[in-house]
Structure formats: C-alpha cells, structure tokens
C-alpha cells in the first residue's frame, strides 16, 4: 500500500542549525497494516508522516501510494488518498464552522467542488447516525461550531472526518498526546474500532510505548532519521514495555530514556 524508498529530509541545510530529520528511510506497508511508530524527540517520526502527507517535500527518495508515485504531488492533491489526525486538536477542524459543515467538507475530499449546495439533507441523516456511534452526544449538536467542542470531542470528530471517505492510508500523528489520559484512552479505542471496521492501512505515531505495543500489528522504532527496529506478528504481541525500553536504550546508545515514553 505504501512504499517509502530512500527518503531524506534535512532542515536548514548548509547552516549551523543543519538537522538531518530523515537519513534515508525505507518502509513498506502492506494492505491493512496498522503500524505504530515510536522514537525519541527528533527521531524523525513526525517528519516522516509530514513527508508522506505532503506537508513537507522530501529532499530525495520516493513515496509510492497504492502503486502511484505521489512524491511530487502537492498536499491538497495527496489528501484524496489520506486521512489525517493531528497532534493539536485545533488543527483538524474549522472552528468557525458547524460540526455538520466540517463533516460535509471531509465527505468531499478529493472530489471536484462545484456550485452544488455544500451539504444535503441525506448527508445530515448519515452524519447524525455516524456521530451517534461515537457516543459523545454530538448527534444532537450538529449545528454547533466545532470551536466550542473539547479537545477529545474534536479529535473524535477529526477521526470521523479522516475516515468518512475511506482513505488508502490513515495517518495519526500523536493524536492523543494533547488529551488527558481518560480521554486519550477513549480516542485510542475509537481509532482501533474505526481502523478495524474499515480494515484501514494505518500509521500511528506515539510517544507512549504501552500504546505502541497494545495497538496495531506492527511496531517500528526510529532513531536519528532511520527505522532502527521493525517488529511484527507474534513477536510484537509478546513484547513488553521493559523489553522495548531496553532495545531503545541499546539502539540510541545511552540510557536517557525519554520521560514521555515511560508514561504508561
């Protein structure tokens, strides 16, 4: 489904602030893979997701999505194939627009936007049913501006928007990091449910090792802009946080375990 080949990305090249974010990343995701991505700060996790989504362009290498080379495709054209949920709950929705309007915008991802009315009556009924399944009471607040929702409600709505049109690839960029633990657990559970329901190919960046182990069928660890660990199948199922921590420290050559990654 996704083939990342030799992707490199350097920030501020040729200056004292030069930072190699991706030092030749190779990664292939099979159809239906749910990959969790971990790594310390500056390991290149978010940059990888940004390069795949087109928010940033790769310096070299190629990104092929379902057989199509999208390396040079601008962000809004790539959006046709991608569902995205961001770390910042403010980023996924338009605050001044209604819940139903946000959903209607998402329902038209990758289609031509013409002079037809922006939302239809049938759509409203569909959205109401989908919102009901979130069990957040949003089905009765369809004409509320999303700016009035809590962070957890917004992330749940963004998740729904990202998957309303089935994406070839779902990108979750630390989408629960800004939420309190209880809400984070709820949004994660919802993510699992939606991914399983539609058998979505998914990449989820997380700082939380426990979440990385508990979710998905495959786990990769990044360090210094490279994929340094790739665990799947049975091996991943029996992985523990302490084992993972040990591997992390061995690979990064120090025992400065990231505080955030220990949060469990």
């Amino acid at each position: 489904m996704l083939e990342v080949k030799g992707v490199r990305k350097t920030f501020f090249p040729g200056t004292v602030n030069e930072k190699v974010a991706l030092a030749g990343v190779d990664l292939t995701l099979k159809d239906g893979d749910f990959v969790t991505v971990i790594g310390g700060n500056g390991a290149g996790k978010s940059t990888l997701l940004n390069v795949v989504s087109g928010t940033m362009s790769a310096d070299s290498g190629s990104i092929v999505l379902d057989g199509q080379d999208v390396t040079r495709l601008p962000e809004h054209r790539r959006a046709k194939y991608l569902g995205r949920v961001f770390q910042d709950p403010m980023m996924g929705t338009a605050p001044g627009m209604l819940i139903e309007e946000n959903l209607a915008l998402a329902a038209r991802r990758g289609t031509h936007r013409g002079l037809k009315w922006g939302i239809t009556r049938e759509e409203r009924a569909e959205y109401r049913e989908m919102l009901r399944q979130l069990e957040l009471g949003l089905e009765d607040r369809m004409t509320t501006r999303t700016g009035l929702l809590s962070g957890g409600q917004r992330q749940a709505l963004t998740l729904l928007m990202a998957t309303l049109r089935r994406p070839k690839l779902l990108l979750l960029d630390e989408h629960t990091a800004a939420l309190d633990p209880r809400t984070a657990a709820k949004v994660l559970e919802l993510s699992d449910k939606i991914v399983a329901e539609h058998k979505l190919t998914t990449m989820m960046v997380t700082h939380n090792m426990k979440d990385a182990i508990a979710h998905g069928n495959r786990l990769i660890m990044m360090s210094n802009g490279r994929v340094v660990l790739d665990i799947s199948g049975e091996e991943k199922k029996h992985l523990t946080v302490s084992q993972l921590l040990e591997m992390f420290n061995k690979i990064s050559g120090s025992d400065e375990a990231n505080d955030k990654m220990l949060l469990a």
Partner: protein
Amino acid sequence: MNFFTSLLNALPGAAAQGMVWGLMAIGVYITFRVLDVADLTVDGSIATGGAVCVMLVRMGWNPWAAMLCAFAAGLVAGLVTGILHGHCGIPAILAGILTQLALYSINLRILGGKANQALSVDKYPLVVSQRYVRDTNLQNPIPLLIVFIIAVIMALYWFFGTEKGCAIRATGANVHMARAQGINTRSYTILGLMLSNGLVALAGAFLAQYQGSADVGMGRGAIVIGLAAVIIGEVLFAKVFHNFALHLLAVVIGAIIYYIVLQIVLQLGLNTNDLKMLSAAIVALFLAIPYWQSKVSGARRKGGAKHA
C-alpha cells in the same frame, strides 16, 4: 433646534452613502472575516471601479453595463493581489499594498491622465445620484440601493453555502484542515480576493455615480471605513445575528451607522480634516477591545480546570 433640523436634512444623504460603503464593506468582510486576510487592495480597486464606470458612461455606455465592467476590473485587481500572495510568496498585506500602488497609475490612465472626471446626472442616465437623495420619487437612490444590497446578500448567502463557498470558508478558518481535506487553499484564497475586490469595485461604480465624479484619490482610507463598518456591525449585532446573511446585513448597517455618526460629529463642529484620524482611532480601538478581552479572560482561565 437648528442642529437637529440640519442633522435631519443630512440623514438621507448619510444613509445612502452608508449603503454604498456598506456594499464595499461586504467585500472587506469577505477577506477580513471569511478569509482572515487583511487586503489593502481595496483602496485602489474602489477607485478603479469608479473610474471604469465613469469613463464608460461618458463614452455612452449603459450605466449597468459599465458597472458590470467595473466589477470585472475589480476581479482582475483581486487576481493580481492573489497571484502576488499565492504564487510569489509575498505576505498578503504587502501584496495588497503593491497592487494598490500600481492601481494608482492604472486609475490615472483609465481617467485619461486626469485626477478627476465628472459625470453629471444632467447629461447621463445614472443609476443613482446624490441630487435626488431627499426626493420622494423613484429617482431617489435609497430604494434602489436597498434592493440591490439585498440581492447581493442573497447571492453571497447562496454562494458561501455551495461546495466552492464552503471551501473558501474552510480555507479562512483553518488552512491545515482545508488542505488535509483536499482543498487547494491557494486557489480558494485567490477566488475570495477576486470576489471581494469585484464587490469593492462595484461599490466604487455606485459611489462615482452617486457623487457625480470619479477621483483617483477616492479610495484613500477605504479599508479603514470598510473595517469600521464590519466592526460596528459585529459589536452591535453579534449577539442577535447568527446567520451568514444577517452578518452581511450587520456590516451594511454598520456602514450606515458610521456615516450617521460622522454627520453628527461634523454637525457638532468637527474639522473635516480630522475625520480620517478619528476613523483610524475608532477602528484601532474596536480592534483592540477583543484582544484585551481575551487577555483578561485568558488570565482568568489559566487557573481553572482544563477541558476534557
């Protein structure tokens, strides 16, 4: 007593002028509030609209056809700003200033090298004119302006409800979200700038006919008047009007109030030369108030519980 009779005499003129500027302010609303861009092109494009309309009518064109051309000229002005901003990476404010400056020369050329061209209602069948503003017949510009503004508001209400219009609103509300939903934010910003400047130029065409001339300097400070109208409308009607069409109506009412207040302060003996300073001060104050309010409530919220 003298004060009130002369104020009463001035009211119809103030109302009509307020409506013309209200149309202009709707254009400003589209960029400033919907797109979240401060577009300074309008100071130039309002004069372009006036100049195009006056020159075409003087050549014998039907005034409605001339106004359509003024609208088109405004679309082009917005397109230029949009290209400078979207395709040349120039910040929106600077892109608008550049277009506005260039338009000064272009407007002089349109006006045949003169700073001012008259358009007498005696010689040409104008759509609106200041002369009849206190008459009680159909020549009075106020009924026509009311009908026209309602039609524009209805058209915009429809447009911003369509898929394209929603995409413009999403672009202004949150570019990250818009791009993630496959919206070409650059194109939709340009489209919004075009529409805005088209309306502003159309207002310029009304204004030139209303006052009976087009002047190369007629747009100086137009953005401030437009912003004043937007802000006055919001302050007065934010709690009552929740619908997009009513927001636009509030902007027009804001412009009318602006001109009525202006009349009052003029009657009270304010020097005309000080008007622009007063306008700027009022707009600065009303832009600052929400910022101060957010600082106060933000400081208060910091101690409180976090939203789940």
